[in-house]
């Protein structure tokens, strides 16, 4: 909730700073600045690059601030780490009372820690020591060294002078102490507002993990092998899907028999998400490469078929007529008019199909795989290696984005007339 408020505040503040601060001296007298928002007109609203930059910086800033990152100058209050203490008052069955001090040492999980050394102290309740990891809590059997134990009827009646009964929680310095139902004490140090690394590691931990994994690999394969295999599956699956889907789409666009025959199949398969096919594909083809490639083939096939079909059916009749009256044969019409005319549609389909394939391959690897980006994060999550999970997610995102950029570049290069007719 706090994070959301901070995020909205940065959004609003940077808007005003950029709009009225940075832009104040810049002339805004071109046509687009006068344009009102026209819905559906993409050119009316262009992304403000300042906003994009600030947006990315903000994400890292908030991420860093709430994970105690060394990269970020300001931090949310972190968990308590260090030595603290509290006292408890034990009452013996005969009514005698005695105070004892618990020396607590809170340490960062993963580091070695030594117990603090304390004198046992006077009275029948003896002083105790407790070590507890940050963000954790630790049960203290405070009476195990006391002269009168709980079994003999001793009972904690106050902590730091505040009276308590079983099941209650009281605040002490740098933490809280809960009295359990059985009468023992449970100390939880102050958590602060930062996230524990096991939930969300700081960005530098993800980066160092990336460097480590790229050098040493993970789960018997190098990082590049994991990514390579995911990409390889996508490309092979997509290529096979396109290889079958495009001719099938052409056939459906050109022949009513093909159209009638395949329409029910295509229209039925199109809304089935490829992920729903994973169990079936695993049953049929196992969890090896062939299963994944079959799955991606199926994911790409229908999209490519439909886009090729739309590309063929979408040819303006006047172009067909023009080609015929210029003396083109059927075959020439196909090769010089129908195929190039369908390319923009096919490219749109290819972009969608690549995106779907990339999503599907990761999901398929989550289910079962020996290597691959999805497998990497799945295995890491079993060992609670959140930094590897995050690293994997970021890499998957970056690669998916990269694929789309490459597809767009290819589109601009191969079908420059797209959308300009």
């Amino acid at each position, binding site marked *: 909730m706090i994070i959301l408020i901070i995020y909205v505040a940065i959004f609003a503040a940077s808007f005003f700073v950029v709009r009225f601060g940075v832009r104040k001296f810049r002339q805004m007298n071109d046509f687009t600045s006068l344009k009102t928002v026209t819905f559906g007109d993409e050119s009316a609203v262009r992304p403000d690059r300042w906003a994009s930059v600030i947006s990315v910086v903000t994400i890292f800033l908030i991420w860093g601030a709430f994970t105690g990152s060394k990269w970020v100058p300001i931090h949310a209050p972190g968990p308590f780490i260090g030595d603290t203490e509290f006292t408890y008052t034990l009452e013996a069955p005969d009514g005698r009372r005695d105070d004892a001090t618990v020396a607590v040492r809170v340490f960062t999980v993963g580091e070695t820690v030594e117990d603090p050394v304390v004198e046992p102290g006077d009275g029948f309740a003896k002083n105790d020591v407790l070590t507890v990891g940050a963000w954790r809590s630790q049960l203290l059997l405070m009476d195990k060294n006391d002269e009168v134990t709980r079994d003999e009827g001793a009972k904690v009646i106050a902590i730091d002078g505040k009276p308590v009964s079983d099941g209650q929680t009281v605040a002490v310095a740098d933490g809280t102490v809960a009295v359990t139902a059985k009468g023992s004490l449970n100390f939880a140090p102050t958590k602060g507002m930062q996230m524990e690394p096991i939930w969300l590691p700081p960005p530098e931990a993800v980066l160092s993990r990336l460097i480590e994994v790229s050098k040493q690999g993970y789960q018997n394969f190098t990082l590049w092998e994991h990514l390579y295999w995911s990409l390889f599956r996508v490309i092979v699956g997509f290529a096979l899907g396109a290889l079958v889907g495009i001719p099938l789409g052409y056939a459906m666009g050109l022949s009513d028999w093909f159209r009638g025959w395949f329409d029910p199949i295509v229209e039925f398969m199109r809304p089935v998400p490829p992920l729903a096919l994973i169990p079936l594909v695993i049953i049929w083809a196992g969890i090896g490469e062939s299963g994944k490639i079959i799955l991606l083939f199926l994911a790409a096939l229908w999209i490519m078929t439909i886009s090729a079909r739309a590309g063929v059916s979408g040819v303006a009749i006047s*172009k067909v007529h*023009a080609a015929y*009256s210029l003396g083109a044969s059927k075959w020439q019409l196909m090769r*010089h008019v129908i195929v190039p005319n369908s390319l923009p549609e096919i490219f749109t389909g290819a972009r969608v199909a690549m995106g779907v394939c990339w999503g599907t391959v990761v999901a398929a690897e989550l289910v079962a795989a020996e290597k691959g980006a999805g497998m990497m994060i799945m295995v890491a999550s079993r060992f609670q290696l959140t930094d590897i999970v995050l690293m994997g997610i970021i890499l998957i995102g970056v690669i998916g984005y990269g694929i789309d950029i490459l597809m767009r570049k290819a589109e601009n290069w191969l*079908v420059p*007339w797209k959308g300009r007719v």
Partner: protein
Amino acid sequence: MSTLSIENISMRFDLPNGSHVQALKNVSLEIKTGELMSVLGPSGCGKTTLLNILAGFLAPTEGQITLNGHRVTGPDAERGMVFQQGALFEWMSVRDNVSFGPRMAGKREKDWAGTVDHLLDVVGLRDFKEKAVYELSGGMQQRVALARCLANDPDVILMDEPLGALDALTREKMQGLVLKLWKETGKTIILITHSVEEALLLGERLLVMAPRPGRVHKEYRLPFAEMGAGRDLREVKKVPDFAAKREEILTMIWDMEEEIMGRTEEAGA
């Protein structure tokens, strides 16, 4: 002299709801080589249908078309067509568009390169020949379409409102270009238009068609095309006879439109 003859053509479209539309009924025409004929008429008079039949895109339900003595059975390079929106191939450069016909006929580049360059000169697009067609303005695209049609050296050129989508100034320039091409090449040209003025300017013969069923209503022989060739078209428009003819034909078409409206109102009532 070879001719394009239209022999008693009728065209009936059956609609999915069981009724049918008589787009053309008993149309007969004889068009001599080198004639420039414009066709005018209210919407629904079947003029586009007639052109599509001439091009071979549609087969008439009755009657037949013969060109130079042989029967027309489908689209062919001997009958070129210029469409309202150009129907250019945007994946090809201007030059590839213009040379489409010769290339499809399997001619080698050295055989067509000269003609294509000459035609690009004629339509004033020499400097644009390597450009993509979608980079050109509407008027330029239409000139590409004209050149593409001419590069194929057809016997008959069919034009389906080729200048309909252009602005007034470009349109006037293009009308001059059409006249010039007609004079220079001596092709038979049949041009459909919505504009009475254009029909008067670009028609040695002017055919006014009437709707329901589509038929030839009246035919004119006009001197303006001859007059306008190589001259300023605005001068032609100032000729008193031009204004008189324009009024006459406009009234004729208005009356037809009124009649259609009246009939629809009756049907609706």
